[in-house]
């Protein structure tokens, strides 16, 4: 692999781009492939097969060639509401995973960079924060403040934009009350049922790091289901 290609791969990964790397195993020459950019002239005759593997996101040898393709996936966007203790462990445990974590908290003393180094923190109320960090059906929304003033508007937005995973912290009772409020606000029961509340996989742990772990496990399970 050429050194300039190595540098380019690192830069593309850091800027959260989606791309593939194609290696010619007869020469070790390496190419970077983007779905929406013209293909290198040397790869032109394999374009159909390359696109096939790119679309299925499968790593492997390209049919009837000496070319090997490896994909670099865009990280999955996760928006956490609440720069709380659990969020700190979530960030810590999620480091080796391919997640793009954004934390929203209107409370400045929680949302400090010292508490969350190297994480994107948005020190605004959810409605304003979503203008800088929009939700969609490929985003996960995790509400951890258990303060309805902050969590509820975020959950409203997540339900409207059909986030693939919505989880909310709080006891069964807290969650029942949350569901009631959502019904009063006109959300349908079927949609409300999709919210993971109380959040996380039950395994007995109740400390902040254990809850963080149980949320990550639940989130990853949902990622692989979609």
């Amino acid at each position, binding site marked *: *692999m*050429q*050194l300039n290609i190595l540098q380019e791969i690192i830069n593309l990964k850091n800027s959260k781009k989606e791309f593939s790397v194609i290696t010619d195993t007869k020469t070790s020459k*390496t190419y970077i492939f983007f779905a929406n950019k013209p293909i290198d002239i040397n790869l032109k005759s394999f374009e159909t097969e390359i696109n096939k593997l790119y679309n299925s996101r499968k790593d492997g040898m390209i049919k009837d060639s000496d070319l*090997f393709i490896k994909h670099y996936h865009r990280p*999955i966007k996760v928006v956490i509401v609440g720069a709380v203790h659990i969020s700190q462990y979530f960030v810590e445990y999620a480091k080796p995973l391919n997640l793009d974590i954004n934390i929203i908290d209107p409370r400045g003393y929680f949302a400090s960079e010292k508490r969350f180094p190297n994480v994107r923190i948005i020190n605004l109320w959810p409605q304003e924060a979503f203008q800088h960090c929009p939700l969609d059906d490929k985003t996960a929304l995790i509400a951890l403040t258990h303060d309805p003033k902050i969590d509820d508007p975020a959950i409203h937005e997540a339900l409207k934009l059909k986030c693939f995973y919505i989880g909310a912290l709080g006891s069964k009772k807290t969650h029942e009350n949350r569901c009631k409020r959502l019904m009063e606000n006109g959300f349908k029961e079927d949609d409300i049922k999709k919210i993971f509340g109380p959040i996380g996989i039950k395994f007995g742990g109740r400390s902040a790091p254990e809850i963080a772990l149980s949320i990550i496990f639940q989130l*990853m399970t949902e990622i692989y289901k979609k």
Partner: protein
Amino acid sequence: MINTFDEKILDEAQQWIEQKKTVILATVIQTWGSSPRPIGSLMIVNDSGDFSGSVSGGCVEGEVVRQCMDLIKDKDKFKKIEFKVSDESAWNVGLACGGEIAIFLEKFSDAA
């Protein structure tokens, strides 16, 4: 949805190169039967014999390091190696899981 773990191995390779080390990248390019690590798994080896990442569950890494060290001394820039099911002799290097893998070894260099 497809998620991968956030592989830092190329960043590590870059750091070794900055330290003026010769570095080999090993990639699992083909597998047959059950193999411990999927196609696309990466490992790096430098001229001090340090390695990072994995191409199997620990079954063949030692042999891969040795092959990489040979390639570092060689004028060739790349080679393909294969591992098959280990035979009766427990001393043989091979995959106990019964699979087969092909690994592509390549030097990082100014030009391919």
